[in-house]
């Protein structure tokens, strides 16, 4: 927004430098320019800033200065004087000024200590109807604001009204279409919120009660839209969750699973680790077989090797009977431990120990281990097993020292560094 302001003020800077000496040109014999617009008392003038434009320009400068220096009261005072610019007929960019007034007003309202919700409502309503291009955006912003202040019903009404907006070619424009999608999505979210509210406050076991019917109504409204929305590629986390929750409540498990799977596996959607997390959590909730869980987490591991679910993943792998899975578990945990968040995690190290112990039941465990450690042996010891680490670990987490110490020899047999209290060995 500040860039727009810059552009606006920059334009007027040029105009300002034009009128230097006097009203007439210094070359008096020059041809008179035809007046573009007959303003009373201004005939035959070269294009020059009128007093009105000068006032609004300086006012804008003052508002900008005040905003930049967080002088909200001053900004509000000048903002009261600025709206006359909206009535300017001599400008070709009235939409731009409408946008300017909209954004400046909301900014000041956000920051000024005395602003009330009524002020917001009034400004939003006015600005909404004073231009076409920004109608939807302003509706969206307005409803966000209502939402943040807890007026959910109101917010929903705003969005419903906005959904049915049509204005010739403008509403068919791509930019507007995108905003419409957002509006629909958020309206559904609001429906969900109201549904939640009703569910926890009014839910009766009596299936024919009116409040239940109302609740079901909201569900229906929300789900229609959400289904549509979720077909579009994008990141729809909160919407997915709400939809799935509702579906779950109404025991439409198949649909829920479908939705989650689509969200996670559809290639047209941007890669989103959360999708897999949600799917996993859902499956877990519904006691899916372990193989399925492992399958889901496998992809997650590729996407985010340091995810918090990795520990669970490794335990799942450990529990399985296949040998390959144990090896995989080793790999997973080794990768995890390379990250700062897991580096000193006792559970992770314990898991590693368990894996190693299980592996040791096999004959070729040394090969397996050295195989996995091959790509790591240059930097792993320095990352975990120096005397510095020994010192810090002893201070913070003595139990960890034990676990780590027991693993040094196994993981790094040719270790030259000593994971113990001692000097830095060569």
């Amino acid at each position, binding site marked *: 927004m500040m860039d727009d302001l810059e552009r606006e003020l920059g334009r007027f800077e040029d105009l300002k430098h034009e009128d230097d*000496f*006097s*009203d*007439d040109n*210094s*070359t*008096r*014999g020059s041809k008179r320019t035809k*007046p573009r*617009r*007959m*303003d*009373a*008392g*201004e*005939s*035959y003038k070269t294009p020059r800033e*009128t*007093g*009105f*434009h000068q*006032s609004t320009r*300086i*006012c804008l*400068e*003052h508002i900008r200065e005040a905003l930049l220096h967080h002088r909200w*009261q001053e900004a*509000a005072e*000048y*903002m*009261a*004087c600025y*709206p*006359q*610019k*909206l*009535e300017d*007929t*001599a400008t070709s960019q*009235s939409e731009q000024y409408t946008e300017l*007034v909209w954004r400046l*007003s909301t900014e*000041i*309202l956000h920051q*000024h200590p*005395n602003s009330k919700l*009524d*002020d917001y*409502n*009034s*400004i939003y*309503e*006015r600005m909404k*109807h*004073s231009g*076409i291009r920004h109608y939807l955006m302003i509706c969206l912003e307005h409803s966000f604001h209502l939402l943040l202040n807890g007026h959910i019903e109101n917010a929903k009404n705003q969005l419903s009204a906005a959904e049915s*907006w*049509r*204005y*010739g070619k403008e509403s068919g424009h791509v930019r507007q279409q995108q905003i419409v999608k957002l509006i629909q999505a958020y309206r559904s979210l609001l429906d969900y919120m109201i549904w939640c509210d009703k569910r926890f406050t009014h839910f009766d076991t009596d299936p024919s009660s009116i409040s239940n019917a109302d609740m079901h109504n909201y569900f229906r409204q929300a789900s229609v839209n959400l289904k549509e929305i979720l077909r579009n590629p994008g990141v729809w986390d909160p919407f997915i969750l709400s939809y799935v929750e509702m579906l779950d409540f109404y025991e439409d498990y198949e649909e829920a699973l479908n939705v989650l799977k689509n969200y996670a596996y559809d290639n047209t959607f941007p890669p989103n680790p959360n999708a897999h997390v949600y799917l996993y959590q859902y499956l877990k909730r519904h006691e899916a077989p372990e193989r399925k869980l492992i399958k889901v987490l496998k992809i997650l591991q590729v996407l985010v090797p340091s995810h918090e679910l990795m520990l669970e993943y490794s335990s799942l792998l450990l529990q399985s009977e296949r040998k390959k899975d144990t090896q995989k578990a080793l790999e997973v945990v080794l990768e995890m431990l390379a990250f700062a968040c897991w580096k000193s995690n006792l559970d992770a190290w314990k898991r590693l120990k368990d894996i190693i112990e299980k592996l040791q039941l096999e004959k070729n465990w040394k090969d397996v281990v050295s195989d996995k450690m091959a790509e790591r042996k240059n930097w792993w010891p320095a990352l975990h097993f120096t005397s510095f680490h020994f010192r810090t670990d002893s201070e913070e987490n003595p139990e960890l020292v034990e676990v780590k110490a027991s693993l040094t020899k196994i993981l790094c047999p040719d270790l030259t560094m000593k994971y113990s209290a001692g000097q830095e060995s060569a």
Partner: protein
Amino acid sequence: MFEANMDEEWTAGYREPCVQCSAVDWGVSDEGRFYCRSCHNVIERTREVVDPTFTPGSSRVSTIGKGSRTKKTERGHQWNICEGFQFILKKQAEALIRLGVSPRLKDEVLCELWRLYLQKSGQAFTDRPLTSFRVNVRGLDSDSESAAEFSGRSVSDTDGETVASSTVLSNAGSSVDPPPCSGSSDAVSYLTAQQLRSSSLMTMRKTLALIHIALVWIREALTLSDLLRLVNEGHVPYVNAFEELPDEMKLEGKDHLIFKVETIPSHESVHKEAQALLHVLQLPPFPPISCQSLLHPALLSLRYLTELNLPDELHLWVCRLMEQAGLEDQTVHTVDPLTLYVLPRYGVQTAALIVVTMKAVFGGVLRQTGEQDDSGNLFNLRRWYKLLQAALIRAQQNKEHDTARKQWRSKRDVSTSRNRKWVAVKKKRTAEQVQICFERLSSRPAGVERIGPSSFRFCWGDEDGADGPGLHHLTLDGVLTLKHGVLTPSHSTYWHPALQQCNYWRCRSHYLKLEPTLPRMFVWLLKLFSFLLDVKPASLYEEVLRVERRVFGSRTPWRKTKTETKTETKTKTKCRPKTKTKTRPETETKTAKTDR
């Protein structure tokens, strides 16, 4: 389709279900009646009066009154543009009289000037008036007595002033009915005439010029700078003067182009208009501006000296210099056909005089030399500069703040065409709402707070709110010495830039080019006076040169006369005019140098 949503705004307060279909979906038809959008049932409710305090989106239901079904076709009067201007002039004069100007302004002077103007510009009191597209045109003698017996349909001011336009429709027997809506009858022809002819038709800016001429005639102490400042502060109607037109004179269509202003004209432009008007009006010689009148430099300089906190003693020197420059003669200041109606710029001239005096008294470069003052009685230029600079900066900042806050739009709807009217009304309402919201939030109304009008910008003394301590009582002994028993300024040299006059038709001023080479104190002094008078420093600079030319007698550039004070002319970047003629004065100043 667009209206469908805009209707929401109108009907948002109304939530009654339709009697036929029980839906709550109201729209507003073209006539302003409410109708149900699902079953098209029309109800009695109309949207006639829109409550400006209604905020759509709030749950309050506002009562919308039942208005009449058809729009009242108002039968306004037919009026001409010059009648509008006449009314506005009257209002402006009344405002000035309320501020303390002599009542003679309106009845005796302005009225006559207006009549004369109408006659000379051919709009009235002539045999062949300009705007004659209506049926019966009454020709009149140019005698002003017959104005009394002429009773056209003069609209507005019928209180004693019987000036009327002669191109008004005749009372009886006009077979043409006046059109149902009003607006001036000759706006279009007025505008085209204005463009075609050499603008002797009245414009808003010319009203100020006319008033200025009237003020000079009655020798009122208001200079053009003062008048423009009063206009800027809103004490004299100008920007939205058409709001005060009576209801019968409605502005429509192209009228706005004539009466709407968005700029306060500059000093230079109004002066030029006044000059042009004088040529048109061909007035008799003005009442003389003698030494006793307040526009004369003798007394006007006293006012400026007081305003700028300069010692009263300086006035003596100003008067001396005035004599030397030949400016005390009243013929110089009086407008006269013999002098080709040259209208002096009283304020600017006096300011220039003071600047030259200061240069003479304090030395050409205005430097305060030596002599630290312990007694506290001597006037010290540096101290004065510090005080004034602080006050000047404050005043400039306040002026900028006022400019930012100034409100230009009128309460009445102004739109050039019928189609845009609705859009304009909507925009106005939006602007008003936003303004109200922020006025409430900041607890400060928009616009500039109206303070009492004052001729003075600065205030010196010991009271609260003064700009600083007063220095009027201090003496100039620090810069004066006794020479041959006469007090003269200690600085014997006087510096001035090249004084030859530029060719008027080729170039006007070289101030901007010369400014970096001029002494800083001098430039600052120019800026100070320019701020005070609201003129450009360049024009003040030219006036200073003019005064210096008079003082040193170098009116004709190639004849140097002997002068009292020793002059030291700097040869520096001479006027590099855009003309190709060789400037003879160049050689002249060189010889002047050798004189020394």
